């Protein structure tokens, strides 16, 4: 059976647009008849990812693959990269600048929320090159 592929470019300059990919993927999953709790996990994981890309990486792109068993998310950016992934995964750890925090973002929950809402998560990051986050949510 064929897989459905969706692609989104994330604009790194516009906070208000973060969430657009999430809204579009939600609509697609609803039309496919995916269970509400699964849709919600995808929505949360994806939105956190979108916000991260805006805060830390000046945007990037997201590829979504949906097949009969899972939703696979690949979030890729050419940002500054993560020095210590283990540390970054800790709840409350944040390198977000003050102006971002003053908007209510950057509380250091992004990656841990993504992990919490996905069944598998893998991060590849090279400092100065960029970060790829791969998440799988089983249907």
């Amino acid at each position, binding site marked *: 059976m*064929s897989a459905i592929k969706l692609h989104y470019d994330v604009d790194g300059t516009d906070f208000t647009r973060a969430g657009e990919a999430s809204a579009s993927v*939600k609509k697609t999953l609803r039309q*496919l*008849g995916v269970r509400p709790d699964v849709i919600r996990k995808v929505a949360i994981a994806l*939105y956190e990812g979108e916000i991260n890309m805006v805060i830390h990486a000046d945007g990037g792109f997201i590829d979504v693959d949906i097949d*009969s068993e899972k939703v696979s998310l690949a979030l890729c950016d050419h940002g500054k990269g993560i020095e210590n992934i283990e540390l970054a995964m800790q709840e409350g750890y944040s390198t977000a600048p003050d102006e971002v925090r003053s908007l*209510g973002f950057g509380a250091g929950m992004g990656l841990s929320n993504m992990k919490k809402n996905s069944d598998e998560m893998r991060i590849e990051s090279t400092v100065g090159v960029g970060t790829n986050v791969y998440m799988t949510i089983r249907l």
Partner: protein
Amino acid sequence: MNTNTFFHSVTLDKDKCKGCINCIKRCPTEAIRVRNKKAMIIPERCIDCGECIRVCPHHAKKAIYDSLDVLDQFEYTIALPAPSLYAQFNHLEDVEIVLRALLELGFDSVYEVAKAAELVSDATRHYMARPDILKPVISSACPAVTRLIRVRFPSLIDHVLPFNAPVEVAARLSKKEAAKRTGLPMEKIGAIFISPCPAKVTASKMPLGTGKSAVSAVVAISEVYPKLLKHMHADLTSEAPTAQSGKIGVSWASSSGEASALLNDNYLAADGIENVIRVLEDLEDEKFENLDFIELNACNAGCIGGVMTVENPYIARTKLKRLRKYLPVSLNHAEQIDAELNWDAPLEYTPVLKLDEDFSVAMEKMTEMEQIEQSLPGLDCGSCGSPTCRALAEDVVRGLASPDECIFKFRENITALVDGIHKLDGYIPHSLRGEKEDEHDPD
């Protein structure tokens, strides 16, 4: 689709409909198509929000409601005035004037929906203190919002306050009271809601959260208003007052009234269907933190913005503020009304947006839909009768339309056809080609 499952109070006057695209573009659930020069509502998608009534320049969309003649159908009638009714009048200083006018108009008694609203507020304050609930709690008072959540935001269903809306509580309590007082059986008592909105009509015929509504009929504020004016007198000396609600109950008429009654600042109140949808999307993504309560009203400014009202919603809000000024905070507390208050049927997800029951078929349709969408111009002009190019692609895979409905595709086809004719025109078969003298056909 079983029409009983999806009764709607928003319908179409076919004679007035010009088949324009105003309503299809504004419908928040993409529930309208233009077919055979007329708008057509897809019943399972409509949430009765009334946006199409508001936007139709030809007044072809209308709300169905009962006429005041229903008063004759019952031996005993109770008027259930919505608090938004009070905001319709100029220089109204006392709610009492409206309530007595309702009695003069022919109702046997009046039970203010604002009174029931105060009971719901009180019960909600208790509910919010429970440790076992999901926060933020989403108000269930606006039936259009509840219906929207049911079809589009299933993962938020467990956040919805499992209480009946104030009008339902008012109908149940007032009928019980009337039955006791008059000795009449329930079916001879009519509890008639004077409503600002068509979604409440639907909610009384096809309720969510309960098997059967106690509201016997719903009449429009806009219809009652002119009749009521004749009966409004400022002289209130004769009888004992009947008004039984305070600031809290009356405030439910406008946006943030319900939320502010919780005496907890951790709330969000959004009004207008587009704003409501944005809040629900963000809520689903867990964009908000530390919110306890969310009040959502489909109409701008809240119930005073309902399509069955007469006054401009923002003027109505000012009038409401003025009226509220001298009212006590609340007159109704902690009655034991569990039977009237609690839902007796759970809110269930209705997956009307699903492309197919079978997941693999849905996947195929989705792939096909993406391809069709790619082939369309992406102008979302609506001329095909579907609100967007994507909606047309969806209609095609659902078997409800053809990609050829697109006028731009049609134009492409015509251009190709004309090109073809030009080519044919210049074409001379072999048998006819050659020297000039040979061009004369033997026939």
